[in-house]
């Protein structure tokens, strides 16, 4: 599991409340080993996913973004994931024109019972991101407004 060997990267996970968040919980309760690079944001449904969330994350310094929801036909709101699938597929195909590696963004479906699948997804995606390395930064930290620089000096990381 190369994802655990080197230093952590920033991966943002957008998970649907009804399936994938439960799936991640199932994996946790079952004590499956997982890389710890993923920061999870819980959504009511993948239909809530605005492609701009992903773009904001990627431009804002995330190294990878993972979106996961209910399997098609299993959406709690019946069609949220169908709508999301179209939007996210368009986004995935759009990323290369921005110069962002399309492998840094993945959307998938994991149900609340699929703890083992969740472990596999997180591990595989984290590995891909580690192979790609840190994403190129849009904004050099030195270009940041002064008050953020001061912040870094007060709380160096």
């Amino acid at each position, binding site marked *: 599991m190369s994802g655990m060997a080197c230093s952590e990267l920033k991966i943002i996970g957008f998970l649907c409340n009804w399936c994938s968040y439960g799936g991640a919980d199932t994996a946790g309760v079952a004590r499956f080993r997982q890389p710890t690079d993923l920061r999870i944001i819980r959504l009511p449904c993948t239909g809530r996913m605005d492609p701009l969330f992903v773009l904001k994350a990627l431009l804002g310094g995330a190294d990878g973004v993972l979106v996961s929801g209910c399997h098609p036909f299993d959406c709690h709101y019946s*069609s949220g994931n169908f709508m999301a699938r179209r939007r996210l597929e368009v986004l995935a195909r759009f990323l290369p024109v921005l110069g962002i590696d399309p492998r840094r963004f993945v959307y998938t479906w994991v149900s609340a019972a699929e703890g083992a699948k969740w472990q596999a997804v997180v591990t595989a995606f984290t590995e891909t991101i580690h192979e790609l390395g840190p994403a190129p930064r849009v904004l050099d930290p030195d270009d940041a407004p002064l008050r953020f620089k001061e912040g870094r000096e007060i709380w160096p990381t």
Partner: protein
Amino acid sequence: MADVAALRRTVLEILPRVDLVIGWQRGPDALRAAPLLMRNAADVDRLIWDRTCVHNLATFLPREKGKKVAIIVKGCDSRSVIQLVQEGLVDREDLTVIGLPCDGVVSQAKLRRAADMDRLESAEIGADHVEITAAGKTLRMALDAVMPDKCLSCAYPNALLFDRFVGDPMEPPQQRQDPYARLDAFEALPLEERFDFWKREMSRCIRCYACRNACPLCVCRDYCLAESRQPHYQSQESDVREKWFFQLIHATHLAGRCTECGECERACPMGIPVLLFKKKLGRIMTELFQYEAGLDVSATAPLLTFQAEEENIVEKQWL
């Protein structure tokens, strides 16, 4: 190009029945036009129709909603009108569309590259050439060399939606350029170069929102996400990330709606090729959903609907 006298006659005929007619007038110089809102017969004398009429006047429609409006459109502009009607952003009953055939306009950006247009003295547009005298030098150029890219790959020379058509419909001119030629060239660059290209280009953006204001389908105006505090998508910082993100808001909000009229790029005072984003999204829409925006008033935009079994989407398999 249709006869301007015939166009004026049509406008005069329609004018009593509407609140205003939107057309073009002569702009600051011989090669520039400006939008013209005609409210009475005297205004109609200022109406022009020639190759300098580049503006997509559909931009004015959403803000005139509720009034009886007549609008003069070229083929490409009519697609924006269709899209606005399709989305219910203008009422078809309130709208009178005067359609025109058009075989191309001239691009200020291309003219500027060839001559000092700030010191333009005289200009003459012929059947297949443009002759300009600027800063004491006379230059004769082929019309194709100064047409915008969209005219070189035009597929819809006649207005697709109209109540009155002035002139004779024309055959689509021969495509002299692939509509995605520039996108293909850009996508042939390595990923890092594309990233650096946007970093450089977006750092030049002055965040004037001209692209947004010129866009016929950017209709939120005072409620634009870029200026909203709740949700606070964007700060007012002027760094490249915010400026780039603004363009991505513009592009993603137009996904499946954009007719690629190119007004955003034409309006950009910094000459940033922001149309590339929309071209890419347009091509994705064709690939995934075989959909082209602005052709059918009764169609549903692909991102507002779905199929339970998508034909062209292959989902990622794990393990």
